[in-house]
């Protein structure tokens, strides 16, 4: 491991050196002036973060990329064989046979499609709701943010009891007042994922609400005044002033919520455990890498996931780039 780390480090330095040389060579054409002293200061300022990012972020990613093509088993770290595409063949076979991985992909897709619009819409509505002066709205703002701050283990524990099966669950006992029979919310494949989507949106939207609020505070008031003079009602003002003004905030939130949603792991892990109707890609990866200790296979899933998330993020950035 130490030798391979040193080799990767040398390669990294060479690659960076190559880019530096390229930048220097093309400096004249790009009309860029590099000064020795200012460049040296910049490198010095970047040194701690580049060193830590190399060790704790880039290196693990590169290793995981490499493991994807091996049969690395965590309990036998000395017997790693290069197996080329075997892991990927296994994964695609599992997808074709509609095994656990197929479910993981399906559930992750369901989750992303459900939670991204819901969470963003909730966040925007809450932001519009508290975006006014007064003591009450300040308190509401703190309350809406509360689930973000509270540890996920507490909220998962609470929701587990609200949604518990039989008469014991709070939701079931409330519904029984209206004569609706009890339902096993988290074990029924039809309702489990919607429940997890709802509680994730509820749990996370306070954070995006804050970001929307800061976006709202950047919209100039005279735009609203001008719209009022033109006789615009609230609805017009929202679509003509607020929404365009929130554009870059919205793109930012869309991309970050999307990436976060693709990585969903903790909620199903704490609420239902490893079950076919709630397993997600991250959970599958965690399970094969950490519980079954098949690091090779787990890394192959990670690689596929990275390509997928990266691809969609690039498409989103292209689609929403300001013209």
């Amino acid at each position, binding site marked *: 491991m*130490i030798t391979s*780390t040193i080799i990767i480090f040398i390669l990294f330095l060479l690659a960076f050196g190559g*880019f530096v*040389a390229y930048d220097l060579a093309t400096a004249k054409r790009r009309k860029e002036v590099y000064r020795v002293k200012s460049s040296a*200061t*910049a490198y010095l300022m*970047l040194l701690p973060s580049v060193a830590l990012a190399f060790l704790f972020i880039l290196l693990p990613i590169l290793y995981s990329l490499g493991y994807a093509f091996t049969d690395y088993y965590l309990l036998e770290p000395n017997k790693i064989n290069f197996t080329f595409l075997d892991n990927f063949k296994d994964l695609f076979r599992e997808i074709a046979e509609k095994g656990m991985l197929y479910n993981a992909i399906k559930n992750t897709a369901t989750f992303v499609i459900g939670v991204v619009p819901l969470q963003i819409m909730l966040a925007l509505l809450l932001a519009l709701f508290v975006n006014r002066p007064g003591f009450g709205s300040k308190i509401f703002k703190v309350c809406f943010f509360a689930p973000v701050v509270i540890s996920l283990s507490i909220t998962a524990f609470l929701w587990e009891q609200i949604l518990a099966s039989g008469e014991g669950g709070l939701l079931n006992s409330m519904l029984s007042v209206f004569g609706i029979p009890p339902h096993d919310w988290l074990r029924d494949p039809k309702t489990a994922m919607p429940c997890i989507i709802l509680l994730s949106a509820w749990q996370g939207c306070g954070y995006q609400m804050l970001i929307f609020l800061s976006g709202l505070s950047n919209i100039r008031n005279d735009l609203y005044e001008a719209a009022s003079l033109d006789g615009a009602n609230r609805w017009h003002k929202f679509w003509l002033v607020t929404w365009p003004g929130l554009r870059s905030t919205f793109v930012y939130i869309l991309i970050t919520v999307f990436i976060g949603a693709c990585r969903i*792991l903790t909620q199903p892990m704490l609420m239902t455990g490893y079950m076919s109707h709630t397993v997600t890609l991250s959970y599958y990866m965690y399970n094969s890498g950490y519980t079954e200790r098949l690091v090779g296979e787990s890394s192959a899933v990670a690689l596929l996931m*990275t390509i997928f998330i990266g691809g969609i993020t690039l498409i989103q950035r292209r689609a929403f780039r300001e013209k």
Partner: protein
Amino acid sequence: MDKKLMDMPNFRPNKTPVKKTVGEIVYHVIGIVLSLIFVLPILYMLATSTKGEVAYAESIGTINMFLPDFASSAVAFENYKSVLLDYDIWKYALNSFIYAAVVIVLNILINGLAGYAMAKLTFPGKRLLSFMIIFLIVVPVETSIIPLYSIVKVMLGLKQQMTVIGVILPAAISIFNIFLFMQFFQNIPKEYEEAARMDGASTLGVFFKVIMPLSKPILATVAVFCFIGVWNDYLWPAMILPSADDGSWPLLPIQTALITIKSIESITTGEIMASLVITSIPIFVIYVAAQKYIVQGFGTSGLKM
């Protein structure tokens, strides 16, 4: 108050006072109902922390889940007392505070310096680094937790005292925070720096004496999220912090300690909730205090992906 209302975008001056009062009441009723939905876990936590095992079991599935048990205030007192005295919660809370303080300082220094270099200085290789920043934000880091574990293990040899560094160092680097700092610094007008340069300040001098004091909103944002991250993290410390030879866990941060205690000792639900209440207080205080700055921090940084 009225002056302030005039400044708000949706203010409509042509409303009668009666209509306005009704509107205010409706607004606050809706707000209170919504707030209740969002503070449910807090109510549940507070209510359960006052109950003994029997009262708790009886409350499950009823609305009493969210109501404190006033009949037995002695039990509530017992819960909090036993958590603080028998389980040494304060010791683990202190650990978490120390980890959080060190992580916040390192995180701001390391990522702030990088963000400044990326935002304000020109140097060859900058385009590669800005591409790397976006790339590393997109790549899911969770996928590489096992290689990260091996790297930290090899690097530190997993010696008892050294593992503390393994908790702190990986948390000190955050590509996302570099990105936030970068965006914030880009919007600080050049004139501030140029004035300081005229007085003979170095680049580092400008960073510490001019840029840092102007960046309170983003510093507060990064500090709060560092604190919440360290305070709520349990997976990573549980992976790398070993227990001492006598079976105690002197280095564990609070959340990891709570989960370990829960799995080993016979602790009641009321006691667990009492400990969670105690450990949630610092986060809440810090968040409420810094809330104003967080909104500013996001706002002025422009946030362009």
